[in-house]
């Protein structure tokens, strides 16, 4: 039975429950390879749902919004929300639950054992003429792509999003219903970070000053991040103005250092910040570096252990004293 059919059946059952207000899932977008989030409230709507390697968004971002689709927080009240999550997305739920951002008890989680998602920009570059809705499935390490009446097969690693190429935990860490087969977790060795660390300090400074200077401060990275959900964000504060707003390399540096460091020990590597960046700034490089150091220094991984306390809310007396005089 294919995953979409499995998903629809599970969703129908869940939406029929009285204690469930709505379901957040994916539906076919309006053109080409675009898939969009959808919020369903009625069991009859479940035939809109799909799950495929095109479902790139991290839907947990919706949980902390004031309004989920047609429903306000008040309308939802104490009812539960059903949500479709991939491996990385499920870890956002674990972090949200640990820091009291959103209680896991208020969720019905449909976990998808993800085969990895495609990088939409890569696939659109391969098929520039795709206008009518296209389909992508996985078959033996290949993506089978049906687009404009033609079917072609492309090796998976040519189109996979970079976060999925290095992903070690494709299995959801929390779920109530699982779609797809169980996958074992692997050990993350941070090869990508090691390559960046090998540069000398001048090269690093030049690289990041250039990257940051391109930022246009649209804050899409913050808005797309499921874990940037403070209702009173310091980026928006004018009194006191923590972060200046001029679009220059220096002020952008402050913004990006702050943004990345706020996610230290929290980033679950869903890659949404990087995906939505209109200037293609490699934001995940910052998050990955922090993830590597957090693992090295504190043996901590965000969102893996549902019982773990937030990294900076706890300490050990034997923590590293590196560089302290």
């Amino acid at each position: 039975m294919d995953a979409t059919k499995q998903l629809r059946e599970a969703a129908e059952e869940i939406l029929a429950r009285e204690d469930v207000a709505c379901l957040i899932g994916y539906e076919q977008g309006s053109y080409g390879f675009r898939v969009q989030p959808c919020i369903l409230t009625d069991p009859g709507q479940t035939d809109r749902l799909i799950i495929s390697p095109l479902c790139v968004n991290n839907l947990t971002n919706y949980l902390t919004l004031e309004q989920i689709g047609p429903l306000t927080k008040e309308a939802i009240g104490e009812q539960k929300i059903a949500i479709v999550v991939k491996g990385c997305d499920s870890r956002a739920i674990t972090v949200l639950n640990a820091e009291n951002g959103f209680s896991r008890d208020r969720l019905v989680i449909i976990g998808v054992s993800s085969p990895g998602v495609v990088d939409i920009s890569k696939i659109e570059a391969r098929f520039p003429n795709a206008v009518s809705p296209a389909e992508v499935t996985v078959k033996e390490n290949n993506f089978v792509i049906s687009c404009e009446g033609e079917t072609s097969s492309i090796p998976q690693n040519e189109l996979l999003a970079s976060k999925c190429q290095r992903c070690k935990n494709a299995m959801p860490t929390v779920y109530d219903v699982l779609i797809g087969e169980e996958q074992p977790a692997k050990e993350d060795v941070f090869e990508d970070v090691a390559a960046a660390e090998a540069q000398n300090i001048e090269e690093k400074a030049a690289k990041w000053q250039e990257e940051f200077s391109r930022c246009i401060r649209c804050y899409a990275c913050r808005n797309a991040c499921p874990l940037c959900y403070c209702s009173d964000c310091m980026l928006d504060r004018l009194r006191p103005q923590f972060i200046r707003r001029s679009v220059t390399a220096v002020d952008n540096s402050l913004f990006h250092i702050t943004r990345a460091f706020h996610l230290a020990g929290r980033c679950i590597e869903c890659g949404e910040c990087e995906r939505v960046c209109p200037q293609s700034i490699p934001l995940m490089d910052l998050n990955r570096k922090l993830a590597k150091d957090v693992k090295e220094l504190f043996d901590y991984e965000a969102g893996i252990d549902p019982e773990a306390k937030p990294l900076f809310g706890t300490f050990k007396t034997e923590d590293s004293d590196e560089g302290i005089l």
Partner: protein
Amino acid sequence: MSFEPKIVAFLCNWCTYAGADLAGTSRYEYPPNVRTVRVMCSSRINPMFIVNALLEGADGVLVSGCHPGECHYVSGNYLARRRLVLFRRFLEHLGIHPDRFRMSWVSASEGAKWAEVVKEVTEGVRALGPNEIKREQEWMQQSS
């Protein structure tokens, strides 16, 4: 004129600030390059303070608090240590030399240690030269 580094030092009220005071009353000599900001605890230091100081024109930043286990608020310095040790590595990754941001533990009785810490930090920053990534520099480039 030779380069004189500007160093912003965030000192905890209960240990290092008193330690620095003791260094003064005990007539220890140390470089006049630090500008002190007193905070109630080293865990008050938001990493943003450090970046902001560097971008606003400081050549180096020093954060100093009580020794582990001696925090006036029991565990503040442990929490600060977690954050700031990680932050120091992160700054290095972005091309800000780790010698520009130092941490130290100086208790209220360690006036001599405070003098040593300031000497070491100042010499470290002096060796690196002026901080290139700062707003002042940017304005100068724009106006020229």
